[in-house]
């Protein structure tokens, strides 16, 4: 396995979404390729650091104001009386 091939599989590898044989080949590559080991490890840290960072938390006071405004605006309508083109359910 080359480094480019490893890189293509990195997302599935980190998500654990692959068969046992491909996983074993990737892990074999990681045993001897230090650069790919570092890229894999630091990509995993990137994901974890964003996931745990609490970036853009909604402050309680703003949350309360937004909820009051939403309920007020919705109260003036019936559910389903959209004036716009309605989005479909996701496929």
């Amino acid at each position: 396995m080359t480094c480019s091939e490893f890189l293509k599989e990195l997302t599935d590898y980190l998500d654990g979404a692959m068969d046992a044989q491909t996983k074993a080949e990737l892990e074999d590559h990681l045993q001897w390729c230090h650069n790919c080991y570092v890229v894999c490890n630091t990509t995993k840290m990137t994901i974890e650091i964003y996931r745990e960072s609490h970036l853009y938390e909604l402050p309680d006071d703003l949350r309360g104001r937004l909820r009051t405004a939403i309920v007020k605006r919705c109260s003036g309508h019936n559910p389903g009386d959209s004036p716009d083109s309605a989005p479909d359910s996701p496929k």
Partner: protein
Amino acid sequence: MATIQPKVEEPAGDELRLVHAAKAGDIGAFEELVRRYDRNVFRIAQHITQNREDAEDVVQDAFLKAYQNLGNFQEQSKFYTWLVRIAVNEALMRLRRRRPERMVSLDEDIKTEEDSMPREVADWAPNPEQLYSQGELKEILGKTIQGLPPSFRTVFVLRDVEGLSTEETADALDLSIPAVKSRLLRARLQLRERLSKYFKNRVGGDGKQ
């Protein structure tokens, strides 16, 4: 090397009951749905728009639109995935208004192989969070993700921050699964590359450690 564990989902057993009640006009039931997901919608909106006021407007408009369109929600997916789809569309619309000079599209697929090829291969300090204060860290993370194209950061925030599955992300963004995977890989690698300059191991160097 251990894989990334998906976020544990909160039980949504009574969610359908709330949706049905809201469809029947029970505003209290809809308010409960707002309470469940307002933080998520705000986070997604701010990641996409990179603007606090826009994110506040997106939260209001997305929930109003969801309420007005509840009759079209076919219940084949989770309510949250449907809501995310509405919120992403609202956020992209705001972004387009603010940056009319630039094309902003989820179909945007920047074709450069180099942008994802790792150049920085120094390992990071064992615990990068200890190198910076909480405030500094948030500033670094915010500034870094802001530099990604909107189509990349949208996929990243849904998959990696909000913990949606690849299939749910594809549904919410109306993208194919290979397109989601391709954008996610490039988003992850570009963020990694950019964060490396802050977090790489500097023992013995002139860094902060």
